[in-house]
């Protein structure tokens, strides 16, 4: 996607380091600003922080898993629908068996199976993975909606009894889960041959193939990691609200793009991929939207919030990619 051969003069090592730190800096600034505004308005910061964390954690885990797919230079638009489908299967399983372990098995099994199915379809029939994910988006959303509305009856949704997950709906548990998943991803991405090869494939698929690296093998790994992320996201969604409606997690699919880019990673993947991008970017994005919601109150504030958020998004990406400008227009 990128034309690295025509790089302009870069800003030097110090500049590059600063650019690498910018997403963290942006997160810190946004966090400080958020706290200042909430305090300044006399609102309760403890509740707000808990809400922000709950909003961000699902996006962060799903997007962190998705980084493996993005690193390969591909992307998956169906992750929101997969999260919904996995959660739906989890609820059905629990209601049939009343077993939490079986529910977890169903959630993760479904999520990984959906993810691998997209990958297998793309690999076996040589079609772009993106197109299979567009198709999966339609199919998974439609099937989930059918199940939920049929089973939900007059409630309009399906759910598990609240006491099943209530003990888990607390920040320490979720932080531990997020940390464990992040460490797993960090290990695979940074400290194994597989992670390095994925970046190589994303940087230059032809060269990678010529050196004997199998794309399919690493695509399967990437989609499996993404599936685990989706499963975790579905589980955390149920922990927060133990019910599923046809629109659950519908916003996640596209927010992943924004989160990853916000976190300082190029959407084209390759060597500049960063495993922390989704975590940093996801929370930055959620914080930014909440800051704007607090500042821009009023009838049409949601439109203005989105405009300012988008401008800020483009500005951050522009600044963080300053050292990677090319003479040709990027594609």
């Amino acid at each position, binding site marked *: 996607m990128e034309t690295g051969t025509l790089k302009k003069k870069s800003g030097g090592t110090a500049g590059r380091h600063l650019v690498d730190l910018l997403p963290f800096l942006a997160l810190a600034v946004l966090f400080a600003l958020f706290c200042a505004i909430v305090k300044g308005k006399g609102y309760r910061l403890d509740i707000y922080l808990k809400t922000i964390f709950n909003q961000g954690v699902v996006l962060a885990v799903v997007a962190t898993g998705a980084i493996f797919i993005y690193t390969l230079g591909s992307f998956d638009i169906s992750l929101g629908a997969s999260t919904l489908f996995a959660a739906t299967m989890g609820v059905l399983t629990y209601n049939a068996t009343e077993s939490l372990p079986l529910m977890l098995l169903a959630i993760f099994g479904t999520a990984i199976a959906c993810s691998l199915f997209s990958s297998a379809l793309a690999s076996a029939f040589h079609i772009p993975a993106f197109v299979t994910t567009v198709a999966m988006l339609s199919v998974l*959303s439609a099937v989930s909606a059918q199940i939920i509305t049929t089973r939900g009856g007059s409630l309009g949704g399906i759910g598990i009894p609240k006491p099943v997950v209530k003990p888990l709906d607390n920040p320490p548990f979720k932080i531990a889960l997020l940390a464990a998943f992040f460490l797993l991803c960090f290990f695979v991405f940074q400290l194994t041959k597989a992670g390095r090869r994925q970046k190589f494939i994303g940087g230059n698929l032809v060269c990678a193939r010529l050196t004997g690296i199998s794309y399919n093998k690493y695509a399967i790994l990437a989609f499996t990691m993404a599936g685990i992320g989706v499963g975790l996201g579905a589980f955390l969604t149920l922990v927060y609200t133990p019910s599923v409606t046809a629109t659950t997690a519908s916003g996640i699919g*596209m927010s992943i793009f924004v989160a990853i880019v916000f976190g300082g990673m190029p959407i084209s993947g390759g060597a500049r991929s960063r495993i922390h991008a989704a975590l940093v970017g996801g929370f930055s994005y959620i914080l930014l939207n909440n800051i704007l919601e607090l500042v821009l109150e009023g009838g*049409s504030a949601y*439109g203005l919030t989105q405009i300012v958020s988008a401008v800020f998004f483009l500005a951050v990406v522009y600044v963080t990619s300053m050292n990677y400008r090319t003479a040709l227009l990027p*594609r």
Partner: protein
Amino acid sequence: MSTAKKVTGTLAIPLLTALVLECICVMNGNHVITNLKSFNNFVVYTAIVMITTMALSINLNSGRFDFSLGSIAALSAVTGAKISYAMLHGASGSAPVMLLITVLAGALLGLVSGLIYVALRLPPIITSLGVTLIFEGVLYTFTGGKYVMAEVQNASMSGFVGTWVNAAILIVVILLAMILIFDHTTFGYNYNALKNGQKVAVNTGIREVPNAVLCYVICGALMGVVGFLNAARNTNINGGQLNFGSISIMFTAFLPMFIGTYISRFSSDKLGFLLAAVCMSLLNSTFAVFSNAITASVQSIINAVLLVVFLIYLNNEQLLVGTFMNRGQKVKA
């Protein structure tokens, strides 16, 4: 390639589609197109799909992924509706005035999108994410998140889509304009050169930036037409499309784009997009015939399956042909 083969190859998919769908309808005591009213709808929908597919393909063929098409269609239509209503209050002539303003607004929004892309020099998929969010935000602010209805509900608008003639004129004009612009002008030659070899084209002196910006302007103008037709057809415009609510229009154009690209092997890609749009419109009319039995969810699944199946065929054609030929030879032997 012989003329007969070209004609056969070009018309095979649309004819086969029409035949299969008509057979399905006849078996259930219906027809795909039952009367003049359904023919009007069929032509209008064909125009919408063809123009959207062309708009999508202009940038996508050049490796520029653009999520903002739907937001441009909606925002330009709202702009056109508000201005034309302020001028004429829904009186006679509202539709052509709105069409003109909507196309201009679409071109302007396309220009903004293109300028952001060339100014920031970020990958187009990223700028289009930002641009989509901005346009959706403007749309929401402009409309308060409500449906725009009074401005597009008048006799002039319903008359415009109440006959197949206007949509057919749009199809012909846009098809000819696209062929002229992309196949017979310096801009078009440069576009094709940049599409097929960006680095080489730039090294030969082709100015990439104005070419890219103009592509965005053309896409914007085309989506303006789509926005207008959708507003006239649906008799409202949804002003509350936040958080990428506008991007689904893009996904509906994938299948016709791939079908059109396949047909272009036997003729031009623009003609391919028209014929692919005819196929999609036939399918849509069939869904309408069976609307009592086929829900929106099922339609969505059918469309997705068709997309995948067609791509599987497209990307494994040689393999399939080889397999069948080998089998045929074995049988003969």
